[in-house]
């Protein structure tokens, strides 16, 4: 069984994002870049399925600029067998990403595709669902538990009402939620080993993907600041204040 994992590079979640003073974007120069946390969870899940003997081949793929190679080496060091780098200098929107991943699916014929439920830069939460639609296959989004039973998977999903369990026939797209697993740390020898693992580069243009970048971002702004509040000295003062505001 082969698993394809989407592995996007994003601004690290610890970075305090600043909007440029002229509103033309956010400051990304010199900030730390890391794998999207949900994608690390996706890769970890794929590796665990391989370790359990369910899968044999784990392929990580990213769509991004030329300097994403180090990022993919990271995925290989974590344990992926191979990496695919679809090279583009422009950030792509989810529909384009989904159409691109579909091309990789046609080439790779995976049994499972695991993506993060959202990327923590654009916070779109779309690509996995779009890919499943274009592929005409099941989607199991926001997964917190995955069990493979032969030709189907039983997935527990974190939904607003609680936990939903569904069965999906394979091949299928799964998107990860935070509690699916805790990704492993990369060990030094693995970084060395990763250097010799296969990393294929494919220019995005060569895949003849119809662009789905239909949305234009025309302005960036810092979020409205909440005004500084007051400190109270004890519980009685807090309750008195809440009562005056009519909140309790």
């Amino acid at each position, binding site marked *: 069984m082969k698993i394809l994992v989407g592995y996007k590079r994003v601004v690290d979640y610890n970075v305090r994002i600043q909007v440029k003073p002229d509103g033309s974007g956010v400051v990304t120069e010199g900030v730390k870049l890391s794998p999207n946390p949900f994608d690390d969870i996706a890769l970890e899940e794929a590796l665990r399925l391989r370790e359990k003997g369910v899968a044999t081949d784990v392929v990580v793929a990213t769509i991004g600029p030329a300097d994403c190679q180090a990022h993919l080496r990271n995925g290989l060091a974590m344990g992926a067998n191979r990496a695919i780098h679809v090279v583009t200098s422009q950030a792509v929107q989810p529909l384009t990403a989904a159409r691109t991943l579909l091309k990789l699916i046609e080439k790779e014929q995976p049994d499972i595709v695991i993506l993060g439920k959202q990327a923590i830069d654009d916070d779109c939460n779309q690509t996995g669902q779009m890919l499943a639609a274009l592929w005409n296959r099941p*989607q199991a989004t926001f997964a917190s538990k995955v069990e493979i039973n032969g030709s189907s998977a039983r997935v527990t999903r974190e939904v607003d009402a609680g936990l939903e369990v569904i069965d999906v026939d394979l091949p299928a797209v799964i998107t990860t939620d935070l509690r699916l697993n805790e990704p492993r740390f990369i060990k030094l020898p693995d970084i060395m080993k990763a250097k010799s693992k296969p990393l294929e580069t494919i220019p995005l243009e060569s895949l003849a993907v119809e662009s789905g970048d239909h949305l234009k971002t025309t302005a960036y702004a810092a979020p409205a600041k909440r005004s500084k509040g007051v400190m109270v000295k004890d*519980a009685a003062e807090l309750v008195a204040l809440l009562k005056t505001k009519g909140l309790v």
Partner: protein
Amino acid sequence: MSKVLIVAEHLNGKLNSSTARCVTCAKAFNAGSVTVLVLADAPEAIAAEAAAIAGVDKVLTIANPANAHPIAAVYAPQVVAAAQGYSHVLAPSTTFGKDLAPRIAALLGVAQVSDIAEVLGAHSFKRPIYAGNAIITVEAPADATLVATVRTASFAAAAAGGSATIEALSVSVELPTHTRFVELQQGKSDRPDLQSASRVVSGGRGVGSAENFAVIYKLADRIGAAVGASRAAVDAGYVPSDLQVGQTGKIIAPELYMAIGISGAIQHLTGIKDAGTIVAINKDGEAPIFEIADIGLVGDLFTLVPEIEAALG
């Protein structure tokens, strides 16, 4: 004039208030007409609720046993068939809408606007990115169907008082059987619903254990509040996952939010930025939660929370 189709969210035969919030969003761009689409096994009661929302012109129902549970792969092709002639398809930015809307957009071959937080025009919106650290203005093409999810915390629910017509719709699309509902494990709770409650009391890692969370539940029950939690509290197993508030949990806008033993990580704060009054209780006076709290109280939660209950009289 835009013709808006809103996909209704419902559970156990009841309409979710997220649907009425989508109506408010549509009204914000002066939608020419608003239609609510109810997919269900038995849509009648849900449709009646939707028809009573002020501002709704029409309710369409697609009754089918296959629609008993909201399976995106089953719903999406039906919504696409029903969406013929509409300029906009909206769904709430809840797990229901997040799961479904992109599947609809992809089938239509259009991009999706996620998490509309503010309306500037029928094709121009503001939405948060980077966990709410930046707000962008996005323009969508006016010549294509616009599929979007609506950040429910940003829009009040449209009031009752409507009397829309209800029509049964039949669509001839093949429905997949590759995705099967097994069960929904739903926490039984008599407390208010976290997403629509006017008061929320949340606990974080500082609460320390599942047993200690009784302190949070007790205060919540005392003031009729829903209970929420930080990711750390959920990860540690103190409370179930559906209580998580934040970037990857629920985005809420109660009138009162009490954060107890929560440090105030940006991923948590993005979930409460539209709350009316934020109260923070933390033993660390330097905790970032105090930077955004309207009322802060430094001290040990296990002493302070019982004192608050006593002071409530």
